[in-house]
Every structure is written in structure tokens, then in C-alpha cells.
């Protein structure tokens, strides 16, 4: 069985269309980022996040409505609490988020215990017969103002430094322009995934950071496979223009690019469908990342190299002309 053998698709010639699509999507992402901002999870900001399951042990008890919970918290001094359903409505699982109030230091410690007490007191029918600490409380995160910001800076710094090292390595193995364009393509992928999260208001949690890192790894891997082929072909076909060589390299590696994208996509899709609610957003980020990463590998990274080398050549020629005129 084989598909995509001996293709000759003019990817490089289609680059204007690809650029337009990319720019539109990136603009949408940027608008999302600036207008809606990122919804950092409690681990990266500060405050309390609690996931509680209020599905009563006995079936005769009326299920808790999200408004009941909101009211209880409102009356008891947490009008700013954000409450969401997690999973289906029948699961009666709720995520409660309370951002810490800036001025009061250490106030968060009381918040956590108070929320637990409030739930225990106000929903006795739903809690009775279940272990509060094992079953009712799925998870609670409480983060002081100092640490949240720190974690965020650290994660971003680590990603930034790893990008720089990758540019240096590609520079060493290929050429500087290859390294820079690979990173531009990476930024393109990450920005789009982040943009989707900003637009949908989904949380950026530690797991999403892990997903972004995986996308970076996947996309760079994909891009380098093509670069490698370009380097190899450049040695054999010295007379052909770069544009043709790059286009051929993309076509030669196309079957591999698609098959790898397919297997990775299968794995992430099964994570999305069967991985449970905790991994849901992670898998979503990965699914988008694989698609966008494959797209940018085929359409963006190599095309950018063609354009930039052209630009550099023009400048060189212009400079030569100028020097000859003298």
C-alpha cells in the first residue's frame, strides 16, 4: 500500500495563498490575545481553584444546579467566584475559581477551607454518605500571589531559551536563515494554538504548556526533515534554482510528512476522545498543533526561506550594481 508517490505539487508557487491564510489566522489569534487575554490557570496566577463533584449518592436527591452553587458562594462573600460545569450536567462536577484578592496576604489559606465548609454545610444531601476528601473534592489548587507569577516567568523563560538553542543548532547544521525561519514557523504554530485558547477562553494550565512544548518539538522535527532533504539535494543538483530544489524536497518528503502527521494525529485524537476530562484540553491543543504544525512545515517554513534568500540576493545584486556604478 502506498499513497502520495511521486507528487509534484507547486507548494512554493502557492505560497502567496498560504501567507494570506496564515496572516489572517495569526491576526485573529492576536486579536483574541489582546482583546480577550489569556485565561491563566490558578497555578500560573493566584487564588483558589476547586473542582467538586456534587453528584449525590442516592438517586432521589435533586441534582445541584449551577446557580444554587453560585448563590451559596455569593451570599457567603465570594461574588467574584467563577463557576463552570466540568463534563456533562449529570456528572454534577463543578470548577470553582476564585482569584486571590491582591491586598490581603495569605488570605487564600482561609478561602480554601471556607469553600469546603460552605459546600459541606449547604449541600448536605449531596455530600452525605460520600467521603468528602476523596470523592466530593476532586482537586483543589491554592496558589499564593508570589509563586503563580514566578511559575509563569520560569516556564516562558525556559521555552525562550530552548528556542534560542535550537536556532544555534540549526545554524550549525544548516544555515542561519534556516534556523530563523524554522523558529518563525514554530512561533506561527504556537501563536495559533494560543489564539484558539484565547478566543475560546479555555484555561492555560501546566498541561497546556506541556502541549505547546510538544507541538514545538513536533513541528521542528517536521521542518528539519525537509531542510535535510533540501541540503542533500543542494549538493547533488548544484545548477537548479533553490526554489525548485525546495519544492522538490517538500514533494519527496510529502508521504513521510503526511504519514507521521496521521499517526500522531491518531494518537492525540484517541487522547481527545477517550482520555477523560482532565486531558481534554491538552489533547485539543495537540490536535490543533499537529494540524497547524504540518501545514506550516509544508507551506510556511520553506517558502519563507525562498523569499528571504531572494531578498538577500536582490540586495547583493543592488549593492554590486551600486559599487560598479562608481
Amino acid at each position, binding site marked *: 500500500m502506498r499513497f502520495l508517490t511521486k507528487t509534484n505539487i507547486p507548494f512554493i508557487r502557492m505560497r502567496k495563498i498560504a501567507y494570506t491564510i496564515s496572516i489572517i489566522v495569526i491576526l485573529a489569534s492576536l486579536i483574541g490575545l489582546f482583546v480577550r487575554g489569556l485565561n491563566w490557570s490558578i497555578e500560573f496566577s493566584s487564588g483558589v481553584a476547586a473542582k467538586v463533584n456534587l453528584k449525590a449518592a442516592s438517586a432521589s436527591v435533586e441534582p445541584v444546579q449551577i446557580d444554587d452553587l453560585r448563590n451559596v458562594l455569593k451570599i457567603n462573600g465570594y461574588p467574584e467566584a467563577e463557576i463552570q460545569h466540568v463534563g456533562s450536567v449529570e456528572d454534577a462536577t463543578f470548577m470553582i475559581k476564585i482569584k486571590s484578592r491582591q491586598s490581603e496576604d*495569605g488570605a487564600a489559606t482561609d478561602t*480554601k477551607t471556607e469553600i469546603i465548609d460552605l459546600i459541606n454545610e449547604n449541600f448536605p444531601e449531596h455530600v452525605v454518605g460520600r467521603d468528602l476528601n476523596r470523592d466530593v473534592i476532586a482537586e483543589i489548587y*491554592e496558589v499564593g500571589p*508570589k509563586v503563580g507569577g514566578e511559575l509563569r516567568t520560569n516556564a516562558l523563560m525556559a521555552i525562550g531559551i530552548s528556542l534560542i538553542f535550537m536556532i544555534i543548532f540549526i545554524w550549525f547544521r544548516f544555515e542561519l536563515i534556516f534556523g530563523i525561519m524554522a523558529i518563525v514557523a514554530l512561533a506561527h504554530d504556537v501563536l495559533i494554538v494560543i489564539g484558539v485558547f484565547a478566543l475560546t477562553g479555555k484555561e492555560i494550565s501546566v498541561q497546556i504548556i506541556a502541549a505547546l512544548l510538544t507541538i514545538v*518539538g513536533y513541528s521542528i522535527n517536521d521542518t*528539519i526533515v525537509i531542510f*535535510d532533504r533540501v541540503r542533500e539535494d543542494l549538493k547533488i543538483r548544484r545548477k537548479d534554482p533553490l526554489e525548485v530544489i525546495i519544492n522538490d524536497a517538500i514533494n519527496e518528503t510529502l508521504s513521510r510528512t503526511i504519514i507521521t502527521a496521521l499517526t500522531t494525529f491518531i494518537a492525540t485524537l484517541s487522547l481527545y476522545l477517550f482520555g477523560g476530562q482532565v486531558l481534554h484540553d491538552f489533547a485539543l491543543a495537540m490536535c490543533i498543533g499537529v494540524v497547524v504544525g504540518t501545514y506550516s512545515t509544508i507551506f510556511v517554513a520553506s517558502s519563507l526561506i525562498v523569499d528571504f534568500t531572494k531578498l538577500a540576493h536582490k540586495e547583493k545584486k543592488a549593492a554590486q550594481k551600486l559599487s560598479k556604478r562608481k
Partner: protein
Amino acid sequence: MKKFSWRGLSIIIFICITAFYLAPMAIPNLPEWWAKHKLKLGLDLRGGMQILLEVDTSALSAADARGAVDQNIKIIRERIDQFGVAEPSIQKLGDNRIMVQLPGVSDFEAAENLIQQTAMLEFKVVAQSDEAKRVLDIIDSNISANLDKFPALAELDKLDKDIMADSDTLGISSPSSGVFSSLIRLGEMDYEVQYDSIRLMQDLVADSLFQQMVPAGWQISLERADSANPRADRVLHVLSSAVELSGNDLSRAKVEYGSSTSTDPRVANKPYVSIELKREGARKFERVTADNIGKRLAIVLDNVVYSAPNIQERIAGGRAQITGRFSSAEATELAIVLNTGNLIAPISPVSTSIIGATLGSDSIKSGSMAGLIGLGIVMLFMLVYYKVGGLLTDFTLVFNMGFILAMLIAFGGTLTLPGIAGMILTIGMAVDANVLIFERVREELDTGKTPRSAVDAGYNRAAITVWDSNLTTLIAAAVLFQFGTGPVRGFAVTLAIGIVGSMFCALVFLRSLFDTFVLTGSTKKLSI
């Protein structure tokens, strides 16, 4: 006899290491040194709590501060050991942070208290009623004069004045007493604070500004809340600030149960903590009791009065009891804290995570289920698409999964949910190296090469690409490990292991399988 090859040797070593670390999961009753290598599950998979504590060393010199953090870690470890948590992890992070992970703990409130309690034990004499009244009056007038420093009280005062302003009787335009004393009322024998004012009073007592309002030589402390009856009024004590005895005088503490015939209702049938004092402590205790007969002696822990029994006679022998409406769990906790000594510098949690055991086990189930389904489909695809080549790939893929787990065990890493997700992704990405090779071999076959030379050429060409692309990712993993913290680090480890594993599987293992099983004799056709 085949000639010796490095490739064969490396495969044997590879298999042996993997088998060694995976064996304890499959075979029971291995010897202890072997069985101890087990896969540790992260808190997100097994439930439990994690607390990041910050040690406040601002009151200590630089040299003392360093020692204080280590000393605190030692004390916390001892407390947790006595509390009985399996496989706790206590690490120092940075200069003054301590990370405590308690897998499987479900009574997290107790655990948190246990860890955080400074446990400064002090014995102080309680002021007699006329003295207490005098002290409270002075505080009241001091506060009334400095009301602007206490915004919460000033607000109450304004409220009071508004209420009084509505009065029909002329002349009562202001309340009869200051705002501070309005929070306190005289109970049967002690001053008491009502439930709704307790929060305010707690904040006041801890406020250093308030402490300046208290006349020298005295202090205000609340009595411990009754856990069985949290809405009950709390007793407020006026204590002499002189420390008569401290935790240093303590030799050991243990939980005991009062006999059911005891006349003291605080002890009858209830747990209490009995303490034994060291020799000097016993002497001090004897002197204090002799000097203060008829007064009360408060047992104060972290500025909270646990009990304040009457001194009826001079007590020699150095034994005392701390009573205070304990549940037996609370009494046990207190005894542990007293025995392990007090923390050198105060600690406070900067972040806490609690994961319920139910969510953890659900996550394992759905995570591994998703993994198996993904693995199954990818393996099927490879089999259909590359036939024999795909079969060999599937074989190395399963082996790669085992290798990742084995290495996680070997490095003492913990498997977390992002880790499982990372492994599932490795399934997808690990086949990449194989796909690269197979596609290249097919290209070479198309040019009319024999199977053996096509495999040789394909491998040689594809190997460069495999190295380049994987090294880039490996560099990223190394940087993330070096500069990242916590979860980012864990992810980097899983990623790096996955890369090394898949490279080995594709370049060495698979090649070897090809040479042994496919390219035997003079194969004419290559099934890939």
C-alpha cells in the same frame, strides 16, 4: 559462529536494563533490593496533597537562616513520619522553600496543620479578674485614642455611633464604652468573644499594632476553638507575658485517655496529652505552682491557650496535662508536634494542591485506555501500510513503551498525567523515524536496487535526518530540564527518554531485526 558485533551487544544490554526495571511490576516476591525499583505515580494519578512552604527567615541572621530551613525540613520529616504517610517527599527548593508531597493523604486539613504548626509551647500565668479588667480597660482607652490605626474597629465604631444617634433619650449620643470592649463580654468566669466577632479578634491579637496597645507585661490570647462546636463563644484570656516554662523544658508528650470516673469534665472519658518535663523544667514547674497557688496557669501553644487549669497546690515531679476538648486524632497530632520540637522559623504555605483519589484513579483508567486505543490503531496502520516492516516497527514500538517506563523507574521519576500524555504522543512520533527510513528504502527500491543495498542506502541517508531532527528536540528537552521547574522538568525527562528510546529502536534495533529476519540469504522482494 557469528562474529561479535557492537550492535548485538547494545541490544542485549538495552533489553536487560528494560527487563530489570520492569520485572518488579510483573513478578511478585522479588528480593528487596530489586523490588524497591517501582514506578512512582504522581499526585495527580494517585491523589494526595502537595504543599509548597516558605520559611520566613527575616528575623534570623544569614547564617542562622540557612540552618533554620534545613532544621525545619528535619522537623517536618519527623512529624510526617510519625503521622504515618507512605512515601512522603520533602525537598528543599531554592533558598527558603520546602516542597512537601504526601501521596494518598486524604485528611489534608490535619496534615496541613501538622506541618505548619510552629509549636511554641509556653506556660503562662493567667491574670486575676481585677488585673484583667484593668488591662482590658487600658487597651480599650488606648484603642479609642488611636482608632485611626485600626480601620476595622473604626468602622464598627462609626456603626455604633449611627445606632446611638437614633436614640430618643438625650445625652446618650455616644456608646457607654469603647469599641474594643464591646467585642468582649464577661461570661460565667471568663471573658468571652462571640462567634461573629472571633475573626476580628483573631486578627487583632496577631496584629503588632494591637500588641503595642497592651500594657507592658501582659498579653491577650484566645482559647482554642472547640472543634465539635465551632460556633461556640471563645474564651479570651489576659495572661502575664512572662514565660514560666517553654517547649525546651519538655521531655516527652503522649496521648492518654481520662478515666470515665474522673470528676473533671474536660478529662472524663476523653483523650488528653500528658507531658513529662525535663529535670530543670520540673523544678521550674514546682516553683511556679508554689508561687501561684489559687491562680490559673495557661498552657499556650502558638499563642493559643489550650487549657488554663487552677493551681491548687505546689506540684513536684514534672508532670502536666494538656486538656482541651480534643478528638483523639487532634490529641495525637498535638503529641507529635510537641515531641518533634518547635520550628526554628515560621513557615507558611505559598501554594497547595489537593487531588482526590477518585479523580486520580479515573485519570489512570482513561489515560491508559486512550493510550491503548491510540497504540492499537497506529500499530494496525503500520502493519497495513508497511507489512513486514510495519510488523517489526510494531514490535519495537511496544518495546519502546517498556523502555520509557523502565527509564522513568531507573531515574526515580514519577509518572504524571502529562507524562502519560507524552508517552501516547511518543507512540505517534516514534514511528516517525521508521517512516523516514521506510520511505527512503522505498525510494531506493524504486531506483532498482536489490533489497539489501536499498536497505543499506535508505538507512544511511535517513539516519542523518533522524539524528538532526531528534537532536534538535533533545536540545530543547535539555534546556527545559535545566531552566524549567516542576512540571516542565518532568515533561522534559519523559520527552528525552522517549527520543533516545525511539532513536535506538529505529536505528539499531529495527535494523538488526531487518538483517536477521528479512534480509536472509538472497531475498528478491522486500515487504515494506
